[in-house]
């Protein structure tokens, strides 16, 4: 039996995982004790991370659509056909009729090459990935407020915090290792404040639980600021020396009195006061947030309001302070860093910046498009309208994960050509013209960048099944078919190219990545990496306050309830991996809609009753589960389940800045199913 050290494939924590390999098969996983995040512990998904690797459903040969049937073909045929069709479409309709969705499950090297494929080979900036649906508002909001959209401090920094505000994060289920760190800090005396409409385990364990109405985050955040200013708890030195724009914010905050905030959010003034005092008085306070903050049509405003809170109290740049956008995928940070975004090259160098473009053109030996591309949800709209005709989707399953499923089906069916690379057949591969079987995390080398900007090595433990290949090889093959040089002997050589064109990864090489990895920015080979950002200055000089107002939330009498979606501890995303992990699927085998018992009584629904949930975009038959975890007026559906896809109900109401859809608040109505 061999024991191979690698990184977990699930959430952004980026835990150190040891794979147990027997006779070429992964038979188990255990945590690394020396790893800075896992420290000998894992969540249930981590303990079972190896279980799906050898599942018989794995895609093993390239497939090509022949009418209704998918035929097995050689790699050469599949890739040549893909290149030919993409080239034909480009000749007919121009490069911007093509698009690539990359994968936050892929390595940095894979994401970099796919972004390069879009720009250098296809000639379009239409490249995006699932970050659009998770932390686009953080990249946008923290980008303009602090100068960097990533987590400011490492996870373990929370152990030094005196107060931790967790909002829009079901941390014990979604980032269990971060939750364990927060609870450790609480046990050492830190005050834990949780803002969440649902009474999650985190809320249950909190010292103060604020339960705002869905979509009212700006109001209570401004309200906390109002009280912090009123009590003289702002850090005036920090504001004067390191920020700008505070006076406008102060003026705005004055209007968010506890009484006004209560009217909007439903949070009792006494609770808000307790939270403001605990946060404001703490010598070191931190804000931790996730999708509950960002997946709103006011996502960027929500992030800016939180940034105001940490800046006004001077909680940036020190151990125990900071703002922590928790990333959902193990490499969604890396996919963003690698420029799998329509407006950035790797390292957030703007495609519109002529100097950056010239640099990339020289590196890649080709001309590059100057206009920003479309974002993920915009791509789907463009596909339905025929403006996008050919697409490569790598390791994403938009049929389950994207909003407004009906529209996604129409969009993908409208495409003239769709190639999908994945490890398992999915609802999205079912619509593909070409299906490419690729290697899972246990079958390839490369790097992942975790939520705390930690670049870590992923190691091949076993060989891919059948003819499946690591996607670095697939992307390189495609690049060559478009006459772009791509002679990489190994993923390390791809990383060498990445570090040569990406300032924040400038000093990164596989050789340097030990058990603790390296945190970017790491500009040169002798640089130790940067664990805490913004220590003396911000990348934009002074940090900026943005005075953001609470959005007006119209009521819709036809749809009197609000649906919020999320993930379960036992499943990951569209369940391609976890639903093929026996113990995890047994733990949560089906979707339910969580309804507050009072709402259920009014609807005449009991636990186990089949109900129909309807929104403006679709309807869903689903089993009801009664629980006081959701407040009255709110219902909750996890989105993992193809049998009852929650995204059949969600809408494409986009945040104007970041283009994230408001997945967390959809007006719905519920009735008992007939019969």
């Amino acid at each position: 039996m061999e024991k191979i050290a690698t990184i977990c494939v699930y959430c952004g924590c980026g835990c150190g995982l040891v794979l147990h390999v027997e006779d070429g098969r992964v038979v188990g996983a255990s945590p690394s004790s020396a790893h800075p995040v896992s420290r000998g512990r894992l969540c249930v998904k981590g303990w079972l991370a190896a279980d799906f690797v050898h599942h018989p459903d794995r895609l093993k040969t390239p497939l090509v659509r022949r009418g209704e049937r998918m035929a097995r073909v050689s790699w050469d045929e599949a890739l040549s056909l893909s290149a030919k069709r993409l080239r034909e479409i480009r000749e007919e309709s121009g490069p911007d009729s093509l698009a690539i969705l990359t994968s936050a499950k892929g390595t940095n090297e894979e994401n970099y090459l796919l972004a390069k494929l879009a720009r250098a080979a296809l000639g379009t900036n239409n490249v995006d990935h699932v970050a659009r649906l998770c932390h686009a508002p953080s990249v946008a909001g923290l980008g303009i407020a602090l100068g960097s959209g990533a987590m400011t401090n490492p996870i373990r920094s929370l152990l030094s915090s005196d107060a931790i505000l967790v909002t829009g994060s079901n941390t014990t289920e979604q980032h269990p290792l971060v939750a364990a760190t927060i609870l450790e800090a609480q046990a050492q005396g830190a005050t834990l404040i949780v803002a969440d409409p649902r009474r999650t385990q985190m809320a249950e364990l909190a010292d103060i639980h604020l339960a705002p109405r869905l979509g009212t985050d700006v109001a209570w955040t401004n309200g906390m600021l109002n009280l912090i200013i009123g009590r003289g708890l702002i850090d005036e030195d920090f504001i004067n020396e390191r920020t700008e724009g505070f006076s406008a914010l102060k003026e705005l905050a004055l209007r968010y009195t506890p009484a006004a905030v209560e009217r909007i959010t439903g949070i009792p003034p006494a609770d808000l006061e307790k939270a403001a005092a605990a946060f404001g008085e703490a010598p070191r306070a931190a804000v931790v947030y996730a999708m509950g903050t960002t997946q709103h049509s006011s996502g960027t405003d929500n992030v800016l309001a939180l940034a105001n809170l940490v800046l006004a109290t001077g909680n940036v740049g020190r151990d125990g302070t900071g703002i922590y956008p928790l990333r959902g995928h193990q490499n969604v940070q890396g996919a963003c860093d690698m420029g799998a975004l329509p407006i950035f090259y790797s390292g957030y160098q703007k495609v519109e910046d002529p100097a950056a473009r010239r640099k990339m053109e020289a590196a890649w030996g080709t001309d590059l498009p100057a206009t920003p591309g479309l974002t993920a949800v915009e791509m789907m709209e463009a596909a339905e309208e025929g403006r996008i005709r050919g697409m490569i989707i790598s390791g994403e399953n938009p049929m389950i994960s994207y909003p407004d499923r009906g529209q996604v089906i129409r969009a993908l069916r409208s495409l003239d050509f769709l190639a999908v690379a994945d490890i398992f057949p999915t609802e999205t591969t079912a619509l593909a013209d070409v299906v490419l079987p690729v290697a899972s995390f246990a079958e390839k080398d490369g790097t992942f960048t975790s939520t705390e900007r930690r670049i870590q090595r992923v190691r091949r433990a076993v060989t891919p099944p059948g003819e499946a290949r690591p996607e670095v090889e697939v992307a390189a093959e495609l690049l060559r078919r478009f006459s772009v040089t791509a002679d990489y002997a190994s993923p390390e050589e791809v990383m060498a190219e990445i570090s040569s064109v990406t300032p924040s990864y400038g000093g990164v090489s596989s050789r340097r990545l030990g058990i603790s990895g390296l945190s970017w920015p790491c500009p040169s080979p002798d640089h130790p990496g940067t664990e805490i950002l913004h220590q003396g200055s911000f990348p934009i000089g002074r940090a900026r306050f943005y005075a953001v107002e609470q959005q007006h939330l119209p009521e819709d009498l036809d749809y009197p309830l609000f649906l919020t979606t999320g993930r379960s501890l036992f499943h990951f995303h569209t369940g391609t991996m976890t639903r093929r992990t026996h113990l995890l699927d047994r733990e949560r085998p089906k979707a339910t809609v969580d309804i507050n018992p009072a709402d259920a009584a009014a609807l005449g629904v009991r636990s186990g009753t089949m109900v129909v949930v309807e929104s403006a975009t679709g309807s869903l038959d689903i089993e009801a589960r009664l629980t006081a975890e959701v407040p009255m007026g709110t219902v909750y559906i996890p989105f993992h389940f193809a049998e009852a896809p929650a995204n059949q109900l969600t809408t494409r109401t986009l945040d104007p800045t970041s283009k994230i859809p408001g997945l967390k608040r959809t007006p719905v109505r519920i009735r008992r199913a007939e019969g």
Partner: protein
Amino acid sequence: MTSTTAFFLRREDLIHLLEELSGTVEVVAPVLVWDEAAFATWRGEALALDDKNPLASPVEFFLPKKEVLFRYVQYSGRYTFSEDPPKARLIFGMRACDLRALKVIDGIFGADLSDLPYASKRRSTIIVALNCTSPGEGCFCRSMGSGPVAEEGYDLLLTDLGRGYLVEAGSPAGVYILRAHHRHFEEADPEDIKEKGRLLALAEEKMIKRGPFPNPEKIREAIDGADWEEAGRRCLACGGCSFVCPVCHCFSVLDQGVPDGERLRCRDSCILSGFSRMTSGANPRPDPGERLRHWYLDKFLYIPEKTGLFGCVGCGRCSRVCLGEADRWSFFKEATE
């Protein structure tokens, strides 16, 4: 079981001995994986014997986290079955706590109808134990009567005396190895045996804080009196305590693949709600606290009733992995004070 004669193995000869042994069997030993010791197939690298007892117990070589019981192939409506023979293995460096765990599992999987996949691995594995002279911070084997000194269940037992190892045989297989590789062993000096006694007394002393263990009645009272609801509120349902426990042996069986495929046996966990949930959806242990209570009851009441031995060997691994930061030992300490 006491050996008749003790031998001395010089430090530098250990590697030579293992090299010879690995010519005939797969040698498994603690090696460094990412700066910590882990049991893996030994290929001549440095041994990691000074580190903590590895988090993944060597019991996994007898009860794998996942194993293929057999493969099935369908041809013209008829099924044929095949299974792999067990591997001939030698596990080097197993400690007293894990040896005791095997004895407990022998009492369960060996009783009544013997569990064949387990029994065949037991039969085909040689165990070379190492007395534990540097117990970890969270260890409490002494309190459980399972360590740090290995008393039985090994083929060979080594004690690190600093300049070399004292070697004692505990089975015919052990005696055979001593004879077959006699050129590496010299007869032990009586002083060496005294030195072993002194070192092991020192190791026991290190653990004096933890123990002696309360009697079973006290444990029952502690379990009855504990606030399981509060314990359940803090449990993050990772299942880690059951996945690392060397005594935990629950499994589920599933067939993967149609029409051809494999019957797999996978480790299961009573910490998960699906473990006790019935097809109807009813669950006799619906809350995390009740499941934790069951975990303790099994280890301290049910397994002792069945095997005469505690279902806990005091290795402390459950506390090392607990996401809720629960120190399992302190539960009894507090409850019985």
